């Protein structure tokens, strides 16, 4: 499997927007720079498979949490929940990806 995870590191460039817009929220994009380290990962078949399974779980979480957020907001008409829903989707996706990878890597399942 071709390693394209490290491309996510380029999102960190968006933190430059802090100097243009002055919103400190943009600095959070710097955390994506950690993905650059995956470029040097020496992956074997097992690690590749574990990455595939972890990202698949994260993808499934993205789908379910997004759909549930939209459904919740439509039912309650609570528009303010969108920003929380968005944060829930993104942070949850990254957390699920990392935790799943650690689980598969440690248990060998």
């Amino acid at each position, binding site marked *: *499997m071709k390693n*394209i*995870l490290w*491309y*996510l590191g380029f*999102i960190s460039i*968006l933190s430059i927007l802090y100097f243009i817009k002055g919103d400190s929220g943009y600095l959070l*994009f710097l955390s994506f720079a950690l993905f650059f380290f995956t470029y040097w990962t020496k992956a074997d078949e097992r690690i590749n*498979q574990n*990455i*595939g*399974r972890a*990202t*698949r*779980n*994260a*993808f*499934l979480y*993205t*789908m379910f949490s*997004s*759909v549930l*957020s*939209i459904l919740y*907001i439509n039912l309650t008409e609570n*528009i303010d929940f*969108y*920003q929380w*829903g*968005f944060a829930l*989707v*993104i942070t949850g*996706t*990254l957390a699920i*990806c990392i935790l799943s990878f650690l689980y598969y890597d440690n248990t060998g399942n």
Partner: protein
Amino acid sequence: MLNDTKKGQKLVIIMGIGITTLVVFTLGFYMLADPSIELFDIITIPIILIIVLSSSYLVYDKYKNMKAGLPTQDERLKIASYKAGYYGFIAAIWSAIGSNMASIFLFDQDLRGGLVVAAVVLISGITFILSYFYFSKKGE
């Protein structure tokens, strides 16, 4: 897991049919209930239909294999689903960040929260489906 037993395979197929029916029903209900459909809805409806049709094909393919006494998912398809999930995940992250950024740069305004979430679902969903078909046909 679920695909390992005959009963589990049946359950996966029934779940697939149920979810597809639910999506089609919701889409139909939404279209009938709200006659004032905006441009965004007109664009998203065909995309949702593509996802529904592709998912239906996958469910049908599983059912066909089960009827023929074959495993519903072999090792090759399992790896294809891992790879597709990998690309779907990358697409989800990029679309979540990129859709709003593109809107700011192109139209100088933030995208409505709902549209960002919708963009994530649609872009990553389409990426997953296309990658799955590509890798399952390519066989690598």
